[in-house]
């Protein structure tokens, strides 16, 4: 598959570069935009970004491998992030994570992100999402969900197409 960045997206990214006195600063915003569009950060995306920002690919690789939100492999179309940190743990996030995993046929004991075989869902634990007062919290792609009971979790799953 050839790697092509649609011209509207490229125009958007060109505009982003103007936000900074130094091009390199735009790299995180580039990676966000590319991941949003392609679903993950491929080798081609890294090289393309490096060329655009007049950097070496290693300058981009070191970001992709450092920042937890970037991923080098495709994940499920609906990516569910469950907060693992203290207030959510006290509020039942482990039970929630287990429930989601068992509903989707995933192994809740496995470390790291897990994806269903049909590529529809991914589930992972993440650290504090800054909404500890409404524990347990989770995100499904860009949508934020508070006080997620098992019923609420089931509703979230059934709304995903």
């Amino acid at each position, binding site marked *: 598959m050839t790697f092509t960045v649609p011209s509207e997206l490229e125009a958007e990214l060109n505009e982003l570069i103007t*936000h*900074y*006195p*130094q091009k*390199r*600063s*735009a*790299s*995180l*915003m580039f*990676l*966000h935009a590319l991941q949003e569009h392609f679903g993950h950060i491929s080798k081609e995306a890294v090289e393309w970004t490096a060329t655009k*920002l007049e950097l070496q690919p290693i*300058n981009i690789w*070191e*970001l992709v491998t*450092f*920042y*937890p*939100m*970037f991923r080098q492999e495709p994940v499920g179309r609906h990516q569910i*992030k469950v907060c*693992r*940190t*203290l*207030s959510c*743990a*006290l509020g039942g996030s*482990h039970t929630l994570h287990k429930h989601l995993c068992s509903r989707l046929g995933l192994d809740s004991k496995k470390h790291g992100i897990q994806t269903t075989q049909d590529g529809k869902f991914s589930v992972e634990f*993440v*650290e*504090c*999402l*800054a*909404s*500890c*007062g*409404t*524990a347990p919290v989770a*995100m499904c792609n*860009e949508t*934020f969900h508070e006080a997620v009971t098992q019923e609420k979790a089931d509703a979230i799953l059934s709304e995903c197409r």
Partner: protein
Amino acid sequence: MPQEYRLILKHADQAGYTPDIECYLRHGGYEALRKALALGVKELPDGKKMTAQEQIRDEVLKSGLRGRGGAGFSCGLKWSFVDRKSGKPIYLICNADESEPGTFKDRQILHKDPHQLIEGMIISCFANDVKLAYIYIRGEMPEGARLLNKALKEARAKGFLGKNILGTGVDIEIHVHRGAGAYICGEETGLIESLEGKRAYPRIKPPYFPAILGLYMCPTIVNNVETLAAVRHIVSMGASEYAKLGTANNTGTRIVSLSGQVKRPGYFEVEVGKVTLGELIYHENFGGGLREGRTLKAIIPGGSSSKVLKAGEVFKVKKKGEDGQWVPVDMNLLDLPYDFDSLQQAGSMSGSGAIIVMDDSVDIVGVLANLGEFYAHESCGQCTPCREGSLWMSKALHRLTHGHGRKEDANYLLHIAQNIQGRTICAFGEACAWPVLSFVKKFKDEFEARGAADEANAAQGSHAANAVASHKV
């Protein structure tokens, strides 16, 4: 009766209040900016002159505003350190990384009243001759980033931002920059590296004080969302009125994030020091107490990095006597005024204003294991004591919660933590050592008992029972 005092969040939760500029303008929005821009040169009695910028900076200093991001450092003093003679541009960065576990206050401002932050930022930029500023928002707040971008666009369209603001000839631009899931981006020099497009490796101070060598090696101000929002109110009401809120040396209001095992978790804006820790947890206007039949076990008073306080602890705290003298008095944990200085005197800190409450149903070893995992995951890895130590601590805590603990693990944990603090590039070292030091010291019997039980079980060839019992937090 202790109650909320809503200044920054005055409108945020009112029915019909929306984050768009028209709504903000209907509620007096951008009047403080107009006021700031209209300030002329002020002649002092001694004949000296003060520019508009100097007057605002002076007001912020006099207001007593202390940073709401964690360290509680005087905002006016921080601004006074900025190198204004270097000839380099000065940058301002709003720290909207909000990632200290337990904290969810900036989220409220960003999502419900973004213009208030933007107005505070424009005023702060003007006061510090900043032409270009950034809002560094954590990657997991895509909605916040969208709202901010929309708000910035609206502000530009109305002439509050961009070139020649309100016809005054002042140019200020603000852009949104998104992080990507790393806690260390909240540390100001890590944040700066990240904004430069690099890994968020914190820089060593000295020499890299942001006020002198910050973004692109230029003088830079980094302030928290809530701090910058407060600037808007200081300019609009005046420093002396602002300083009447709160208590001496702990002025203004503060948004407290309350979470954990209370009936009514949530965020509460209070006058700093006017409400006690106990009131925040038990009073019906705030947390409403613990769940039925539970007793208090421990409180994390200022975000997960602050030292834990144990129920029943009594501290020596200085209090102003009737003759105006400060005298040390014994104070129970729950009677501590929730401010910067009292918490510090109690050996902890109010940090990011995040209180996490634990009742007697928690497994305290499990709680620390949860935090240990957080820090092991979030260490940036530059300094050996932090990178290795956070992992060792997490491993020891993992085995203590999975039936493989040892009695000496308690001392082992203390030993590692003691060797991290003070030996690292950034304050993350302390952030990961302090919870361990305080939890293990204050609940040592529980840590040792857990390890001893595991050893006894292992001797009998069965650790299964204990493992199951301790797996939940």
